[in-house]
């Protein structure tokens, strides 16, 4: 009787391994490092995510900057509630057309996602979204 019980305890311990998650403070620190002394304003950059997410394994995301006053150097995406705070970094080169990228991302849970665009003139712009991630009932 003891062994199965121990096994059960061990299993429970495995299941309860605390998973480290990013925090808003961690993301805030990364953004401060990225932006440095530059001004950070809301606007210009757009982060499009569905309001209601059907499955967090593949969430359609688009980041874009419309009519930038100076060329867009890069767009950085952060997720406050994922295991890791950084989602992706996109740097735009001389052959880039419209400064926009669509991709699919993983979201562990409902959370705030932040996009920061850095322009060549040194300004940084911010947008955020708060997708609601639902969970399916029947998973494999």
């Amino acid at each position, binding site marked *: 009787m003891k062994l199965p019980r121990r096994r059960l305890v061990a299993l429970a311990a495995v299941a309860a391994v605390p998973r480290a998650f990013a925090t808003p403070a961690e993301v805030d620190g990364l953004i401060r490092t990225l932006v440095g002394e530059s001004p950070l304003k809301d606007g210009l950059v757009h982060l499009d995510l569905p309001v209601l997410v059907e499955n967090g394994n593949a969430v359609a995301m688009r980041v874009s900057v419309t009519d930038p006053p100076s060329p867009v150097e890069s767009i950085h995406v952060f997720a406050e509630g994922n295991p890791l705070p*950084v989602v*992706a970094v996109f740097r*735009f080169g*001389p052959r*880039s*057309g419209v400064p926009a990228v*669509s*991709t699919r991302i*993983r979201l562990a849970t409902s959370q705030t996602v932040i996009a920061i665009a850095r322009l060549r003139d040194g300004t940084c712009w911010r947008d955020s979204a708060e997708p609601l991630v639902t969970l399916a009932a029947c998973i494999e």
Partner: protein
Amino acid sequence: MVRVLINVPKQVFRSIPFEVKVLISHPMESGQRRDQVGQAIPRDIINHFVCTLDGETVLDADFFPAISANPFLAFSVVAEKSGILALTFVDDQGVTQTETVAVNVA
């Protein structure tokens, strides 16, 4: 060799941005999962992606484990003349793969 699908418009126009769509067959194993006996599954992702047109950069991207399995990317390119669009990506084992497609400017 992972499978790659690249979608470029058949004909594009000088100085007018066009969209390129890319799909790459890759599990993008996040390193956050455990297998059925509780062992951590090691991280295995494409961590860097670069697209160039005749050697000039279009997009240079860093991927993290939050990029979905079988990554999809759509982005915009502007060409002044016909050329070769090259996609290069690197995985966690350091394996690099390059795929090319012709761009025909009208």
